[in-house]
């Protein structure tokens, strides 16, 4: 079993206009840089993107927003992107803001084969509008549905030819959850190794969830808030 594809362009060859994509990463940390670049080049349109954030103006999903490739964003926090806010306030872009834990858990539910989960996040708020609620032990919970996505695009640190993935530090974030949730999951990795080289105990995402994998290149790994202390 070999899931390796040549590069990002080959990996997204069947992504089409109007599809729903999940994109891993938190802020610019752990985003699938190569796959986003390929989507920008391919210029597929009318996408629904599920991603915790929307990048910044000139990097990450921000690049897709510039080209008006995104019809709808489902995110928890979009504060770092002026173009995003402009498109949102002018009504050009449809946006569904949902709590971060809800976003993570709706991905997880999809990967665990559960149609819905119950969470107290958002009870009594705009987020609860139109949603079914249930009371357990005196506390009210919202029913949140598992996500459905045509493709999940994730970035891992290491991966093997069978699609097993290992993430690094806080670049893990939503990546393993989205990897479980895509109808088709594509992983780009910093280091691609033959099956058998990764310690089975150390693998975060079992390859059964991953359909295509390739070694990415030219990682920029841009830092949003470089914060240091003097020596």
């Amino acid at each position, binding site marked *: 079993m070999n899931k390796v594809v040549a590069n990002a362009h080959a990996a997204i060859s069947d992504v089409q206009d109007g599809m729903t994509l999940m994109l891993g990463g938190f802020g*610019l940390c752990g985003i699938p840089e190569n796959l986003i670049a390929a989507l920008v080049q391919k210029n597929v349109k009318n996408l629904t993107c599920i991603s915790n954030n929307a990048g910044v103006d000139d990097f990450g999903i921000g690049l897709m927003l510039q080209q008006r490739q995104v019809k709808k964003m489902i995110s928890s926090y979009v504060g770092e992107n002026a173009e995003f806010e402009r498109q949102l306030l002018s009504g050009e872009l449809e946006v569904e803001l949902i709590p971060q*834990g809800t976003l993570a858990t709706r991905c997880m539910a999809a990967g665990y084969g559960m149609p819905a989960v119950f969470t107290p996040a958002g009870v009594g708020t705009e987020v609860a509008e139109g949603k079914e609620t249930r009371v357990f032990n005196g506390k009210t919970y919202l029913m949140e549905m598992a996500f459905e996505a045509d493709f999940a695009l994730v970035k891992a640190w290491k991966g093997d030819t069978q699609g097993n993935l290992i993430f690094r530090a*806080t670049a893990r974030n939503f990546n393993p959850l989205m990897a479980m949730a895509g109808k088709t999951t594509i992983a780009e990795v910093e280091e691609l190794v033959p099956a058998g080289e990764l310690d089975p105990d150390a693998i975060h995402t079992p390859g059964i969830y991953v359909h295509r994998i390739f070694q990415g290149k030219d990682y920029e790994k841009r830092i949003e808030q470089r914060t*240091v202390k003097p020596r």
Partner: protein
Amino acid sequence: MLNKEQIAQRIARELRNGMYVNLGIGIPTLVANYVPEEMTIVLQSENGLLGMGPFPFDGEEDPDLINAGKQTITTIPGSVFFDSAMSFGMIRAGKVDLTVLGAMEVADNGDIANWKIPGKMVKGMGGAMDLVASAKNIIVAMQHCSRDGKSKLLSSCTLPITGLGCVKKVVSDLGVFDIDHRGFVLLERAPGISVETIVASTEGRLFVPDEVPEMTF
């Protein structure tokens, strides 16, 4: 009147040894600078880290290692990484002992609004709705009044709600308040701030005990 550092310093007095604590963006982040030396506090960053260390030295930043405010950080002995579902799992399950976050408005029944100003600011709630819905103990760090002098401690929130009845304590630039069935209960005054000033600056129900000590730093 307390400055931002003093608000953080006052909140740090609520810390107890061995607590797992989530600090929000802004003033709450500063609380980490005032953890007493003899105390062990484990900071949770909701993007997927327990055991958040200080900022790195210049040149040692790791783009794969950031906190929930997207700042570069470090790990410390005992640190652990996990995915965002587990991160909010431990929050939802009540494992995090204390959550400190900022607010635009707090109501005297514990409601909080801090994620949206309709038509103006739409940044999103991030993890705030998850945190306030599940945290056992929530302390809010905030300015008591807006720039044009309007109280932000209200009888009911005017902005879109983040969570209902969840705030237990407020530390503002004017004082420290518990929230219970009496509304805002004034516990301490900021240095040089009179009870009368606090009464005049608080739109929500305010309970003033006979003795209201002045904070010292």
